């Protein structure tokens, strides 16, 4: 057990930093052209465009230490905007459950970031209890396609997505988790209607998606009919580890300190204020521990062991830390944080602070609400599920 980076790791770190610095965005140039080019160049480095993909599918096959180095380096430098739905969430499921034809058809576009995906899981009646979903998919008489009808809600980026991976119900018999089928279909077609939902931070990121008589060829089904729950759950594992955001929090902590130090007080700055300082210190200590919890989890995953108990802690701790960071940022802004369309009042971080704080409240709701997440840990890690029958009927999300 030691924490030194080997000479190889140090060389890798240097290579990563050089790559990121050499390919940084140049202000004034075409952002989207740069974005596609960046991913193409990262690919040439040997799969740096898809760090988590297995080597068989063109991933880099990094050690946990290398993943750690990559995460830290990318957190402090600008990398292109990248939504997780395609490369991080759907891709591993296609690799595990998809046919070779599906892999060939979808993975290259996901990898090149040519096609954007969204996640059609939640419905008005199916949130934490995801298995309660009601969107119907009826197989046509000739068995060539499904006809899909239903409503999805909270679909992030549906208004920008080209395709959706969508959980549908193909059967009502048996347990709720049975009879779920995992389908892929294009968003830009008649029968798919996207309505914006504005959230508390004032942003439009989530949507309601109405699906009416949309025909989906059977080739677009991932896994067997009625066996979509396994795919759905596998995907959620990938979603959750992504949500912890430890590297970003480390960067955000330093940024918070700088911001607090820019708020002048009679005897120094806000960072010298004993109360504010103590709060930042408490946060930093939690973050230091969580950083190592993540490393332990990375190490376990790479040695091929099943994800250990550490990994289930990560979403809970990681999101709590992110929320506290946002709250302290809002508080550092003082009353200026309340200035909404205020243009130029107070420090520029203040307005961002309030909307950031409000948006951060969702971190403990999506990807499995914290309360449900704790149920999962109690049951699967500690083995102390309640014995009441009603609890046994519940979904596993």
């Amino acid at each position: 057990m030691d924490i030194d980076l080997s000479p190889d790791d140090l060389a890798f770190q240097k290579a990563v930093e050089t790559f990121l610095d050499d390919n940084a965005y140049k202000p004034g140039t075409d952002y989207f052209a740069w974005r596609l080019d960046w991913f193409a160049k990262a690919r040439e480095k040997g799969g740096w465009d898809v760090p988590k993909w297995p080597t068989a599918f063109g991933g880099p096959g990094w050690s946990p230490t290398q993943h750690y180095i990559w995460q830290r380096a990318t957190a402090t430098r600008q990398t292109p905007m990248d939504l997780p739905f395609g490369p991080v969430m759907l891709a591993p499921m296609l690799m595990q459950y998809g046919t070779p034809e599906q892999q060939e058809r979808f993975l290259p576009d996901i990898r090149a970031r040519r096609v954007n995906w969204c996640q059609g899981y939640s419905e008005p009646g199916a949130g934490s209890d995801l298995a309660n979903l009601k969107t119907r998919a009826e197989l046509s008489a000739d068995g060539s396609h499904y006809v899909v009808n239903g409503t999805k809600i909270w679909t992030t980026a549906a208004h920008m997505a080209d395709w959706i991976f969508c959980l549908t119900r193909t059967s009502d018999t048996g347990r709720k988790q049975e009879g779920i089928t995992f389908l892929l279909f294009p968003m830009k077609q008649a029968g798919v209607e996207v309505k914006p939902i504005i959230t508390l931070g004032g942003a439009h990121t989530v949507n309601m998606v109405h699906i009416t008589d949309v025909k989906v060829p059977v080739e677009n089904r991932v896994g067997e009919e009625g066996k979509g729950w396994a795919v759905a759950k596998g995907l959620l594992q990938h979603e959750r580890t992504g949500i912890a955001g430890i590297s970003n929090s480390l960067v955000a902590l330093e940024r918070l300190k700088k911001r607090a130090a820019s708020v002048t007080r009679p005897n120094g700055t806000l960072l010298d204020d004993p109360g504010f300082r103590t709060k930042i210190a408490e946060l930093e200590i939690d973050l230091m521990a969580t950083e190592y919890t993540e490393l332990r989890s990375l190490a376990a995953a790479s040695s091929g062991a099943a994800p250990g108990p550490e990994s289930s802690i990560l979403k809970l701790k990681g999101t709590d830390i992110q929320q506290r960071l946002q709250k302290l940022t809002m508080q550092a802004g003082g009353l200026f944080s309340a200035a909404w369309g205020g243009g130029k009042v107070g420090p520029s971080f203040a307005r961002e602070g309030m909307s950031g704080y409000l948006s951060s409240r969702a971190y403990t709701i999506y990807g499995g609400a914290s309360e449900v997440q704790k149920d999962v840990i109690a049951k699967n890690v500690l083995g102390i599920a309640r014995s009441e029958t009603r609890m046994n009927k519940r979904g596993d999300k």
Partner: protein
Amino acid sequence: MNFDLSEEQQLIVDSVRRFVDDNYDLEKRKKYTSSTRGFGDDNWRTMAELGWLGLPFGEADGGFGGNQIDVMLVMEQFGRGLVVEPYLPSVVLGGGAVRRGGSAALRSTIVPAIIDGSAQLALATMEDQSRFDLNDVLTRAGDDGDHWTLSGSKTMVINGGSATHLVVSCRTAGAQYDEAGITLLLVDATASGVEHRSFATVDGLQAAEITFNNVQVPRDNTLGEPGNGYALLHDVMLDGILAICAEAVGAMEMLYKDTIEYTQQRVQFDHPLSDFQVLQHRMVEMFMEYEQCKSMLLRATMEVAASGSGATRTVHALKALVGKQAIFVGENAVQLHGGMGMTEELRIGHYFKRLLVIDAMFGNADHHLYRFAA
């Protein structure tokens, strides 16, 4: 000791409650906040007609002769309804300064106009660098005999854009952080050299940045003794804190009750969410914190009504407690509503946003905690 309301006080509560029920829901509130002045002109007239704008003013000035307790009753109901009319800046803050510090002549012209709603006030104390410290004042006024010449700028002035008159803290002597040498002036918002820029705040209200460029302010518009404005400001601030904490308590009540109702209706895993023990306990905590805040509100309000600034420490305690627990209640209301809690569609998000602003006004929970501990 007696926590019962007098007949008169009960009448106030009932009529404000009725007003809120009749004139406030999310839809209507949105209409008010998106109008130019950011509130309902008809509502403002109603408040004047019902006498609420005259509540804390002395009978000699044409007021009702009420005290902080009467204002608390009004503000708590306003909090329940998320009322946006500028009662706080005009009646409690600006009005509070005029009532305490204005000469008889000045009061006789301005107070009737506040009470009938034709004048609106705003309190302009915060500056870019001052954060929560009322003594941190760079705006200056020079003594030119029969008038002051005022220069400087103020920010985050609630209702600053609609106000006809501004109560401005400025330095007539001393250095940046000195309590001595601060003077309060009543400034005509249309006077030459006054410029403002209004903007929306996260709670749907409006604030303004206001600059004063060699503004001539008549000597008789001085509130209190020149150079002794800080003590006056302190008293006004105590009233302001009591008022927004009453508002917060009203909002917290709605939040915990809405959450109970929602979790009883929302079914997941074949059960109403309210069946889950962890959520039951959370709602019990929300309820308890609401009750505790209400107790502290009553305590602080009655102490201030009895002994004024002698109760300052209790007011610090109130603001520290309410700031912290209002955010606790707001965060958990959102959490227990799940995705729905994150939308603009339900009212809980709007209460939550108002509570965030209330915490940041007149010093946040931390600020008052340190003052209390000091």
